[in-house]
């Protein structure tokens, strides 16, 4: 191994690490606010990438139907409970968000010449389709059992993951897609070259992380989420709706997932079931951060990316083994250094 190879591997590792970092942040956020271990995080990556691929190929994105279907179910569920509670005026708002929005989007997607749109518009459409599924998923899957033990929430996560992978196969078919890169630029820096897409991935991740940090420290919604994460009961007493916090969290998680998918789909082929493994590596990073620390999780994600890249060079057959074995020393170290507190249930 010489310096050049080390540089190339390092670049590769940092690119993947940036994506893992985004996912790890989403996992930490979701767990902190709702106590859900969000296994389907990876599916949002695949849905984002494949929806963009379908739009790019001029097909009608099948995820649109899922959005519409989920919207109908949420409208029914929320509408009925609103009427029962005697707040029939709320129904209009509920239907507006969950039913009218998907229908308008459907009409828009239907009428646009998808293939000829500029890439930025295609990406925007993808996000408009995929991201609202996050809050809807929270409403349908997690909100009814929001107070259940972590284990029950985890089991629901696995169920949601399996359902989303199955639907993914129906929507996108078994074959993978690769979308066209945001930029075809190539920069030669000394002995190595950097592609435009790599720079896009790293910069967008950085921008997104900074934006998240600002959101949590400066905005009222961000502060509300932080408050819920630190002390759910206290936050509720201060008038922060746990339901709103949950939906907002899942909105962010879906946004991060779909955005990651859009960013990496020009670099690698994405299949309907690719998301799980990417999400799992983000999860390893989130575990390194103890499912609570954002900076340690992000650093852990970079470590996972670099470890993966270098182990693929030295011992390609054992790459995954090496990456996932990383969890064991981390868990040992954490269990030795932190004082375990029983969860109140």
């Amino acid at each position, binding site marked *: 191994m010489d310096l050049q190879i080390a540089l190339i591997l390092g670049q590769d590792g940092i690119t*993947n690490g940036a994506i893992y970092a985004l996912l790890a942040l989403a996992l930490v956020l979701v767990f902190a606010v709702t106590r859900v271990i969000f296994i389907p995080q990876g599916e949002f990556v695949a849905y984002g990438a494949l929806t963009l691929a379908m739009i790019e190929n001029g097909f009608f994105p099948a995820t649109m139907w899922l959005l519409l279907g989920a919207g109908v179910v949420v409208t029914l569920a929320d509408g009925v409970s609103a009427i029962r509670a005697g707040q029939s005026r709320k129904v209009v708002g509920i239907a507006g968000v969950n039913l009218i929005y998907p229908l308008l989007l459907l009409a828009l997607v239907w009428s646009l010449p998808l293939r000829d749109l500029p890439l930025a518009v295609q990406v925007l459409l993808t996000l408009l389709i995929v991201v609202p599924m996050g809050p809807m998923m929270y409403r349908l899957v997690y909100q009814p059992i929001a107070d259940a033990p972590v284990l029950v929430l985890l089991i629901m996560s696995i169920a949601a993951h399996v359902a989303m992978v199955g639907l993914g*196969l129906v929507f996108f*078919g*078994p074959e993978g897609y690769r979308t066209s890169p945001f930029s075809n630029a190539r920069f030669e820096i000394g002995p190595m070259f950097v592609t435009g897409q790599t720079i896009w991935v790293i910069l967008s991740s950085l921008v997104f992380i900074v934006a998240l940090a600002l959101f949590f420290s400066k905005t009222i919604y961000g502060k509300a989420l932080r408050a819920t994460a630190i002390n759910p009961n206290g936050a509720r007493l201060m008038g922060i709706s746990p339901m709103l916090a949950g939906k907002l969290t899942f909105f962010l998680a879906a946004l991060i997932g779909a955005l990651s998918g859009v960013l990496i789909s020009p670099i*690698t082929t994405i299949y309907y079931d690719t998301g799980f493994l990417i999400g799992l590596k983000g999860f390893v990073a989130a575990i390194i951060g103890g499912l609570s620390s954002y900076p340690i999780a992000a650093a852990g994600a970079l470590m996972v990316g670099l470890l993966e890249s270098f182990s693929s060079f030295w011992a390609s057959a054992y790459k995954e083994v090496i990456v996932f074995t990383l969890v064991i020393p981390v868990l040992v170290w954490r269990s030795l250094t932190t004082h375990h507190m029983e969860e109140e249930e």
Partner: protein
Amino acid sequence: MKFNKALLAAIGLAFSVGAAHAQIKVGVTVSATGPAASLGIPERNTADLMPKEIAGQAIQYIVLDDASDTTSAVKNIRRFVDEDRVDVVLGSTTTPNSLAMIEVAAESRTPMISWAASSRIVEPVDDVRRWVFKTPQNDQHMATAIIEHMTNHGIKTVGFIGFADAYGEGWLEHFRTLAGLRGLDVVSTQQYNRTDTSVTGQVLQLISANPDAILIAGSGTPAALPQRTLVERRYAGKIYQTHGVANNDFLRVCGRDCEGTFLPAGPVLVADQLPDSNPVKASALTYIRAYEAAHGAGSVSTFGAHAWDSGVLLEAAVPEALKVAQPGTAEFRAALRDALENVSEAAGAHGIFNMSPTDHLGLDQRARVMVQIQNGTWKLAD
């Protein structure tokens, strides 16, 4: 009361009609979902096109999905032999599934025709594998084709990158053995996973070994990743793929980066380019026409053709078996097995089948051609 009598009569009639037309039952288990879905879906589509009647006997197909899962495949074949009492089992798509099924086939004395590639499914023909046949070419067939092509083009050193699973391992084993015999030097071997998002490390290792050619042993679109990375890193030698990539999705995903790639494949892939003298041309075109008539032009894949070939084998064997016994009996199943073993010169989409008591595949050199990717399509190479 009157109504009840009429109903009973109707039911009786229905049953007697069923009995009068004894039919041949075929159980099909196919991996139409799960990781092998891209192979399984064309196979399931092909099952709808297989002969509905052979020698005056109606054929009933019972098609079940095993989701690329070994346990489900075994469950399916158990159902076929215990509940449906089928005369023959077709499938499954993958090697692990097929290997798990052969015990059940042998135990229930039901002939089985697998659509999976590994030679271990039918070799050696022992007491268990007596009942098992298969239609896809062995990996060895394909590996010899690649090695022949390499030595003919002056290649001395080869790098290898393959899936870290049974497919890649199997190829590595065959390729290494055969390359050793022909004096080719395998200078670097790397592995990766179907789900990997980057193979930069492996590709750097390969390039630093500087081989004349690189063989990528992967199947389906995941085999495009090493190729794209090799091109990105400006590898200048020849690149070979295996027949596992011979579908149009691979061309779509790999795009320009796959120009010039060589691979071995069943003749059905380039059937219209074969010379008229080629014995497989007519039978391969028959399949392509049948499939494309049902699913649209350009939709055909070589994987579905393996399923089609099992129909060809049945068409050749069933008339012989009918001379011995009636469908639905153990005698018929035994006779069908014997007849399958004696199939000779049956022209399928992938080659000419000549079965024997020691060869339950029956394909020869006519079952493969070398193909090159040119302008985004498959071209017959010399």
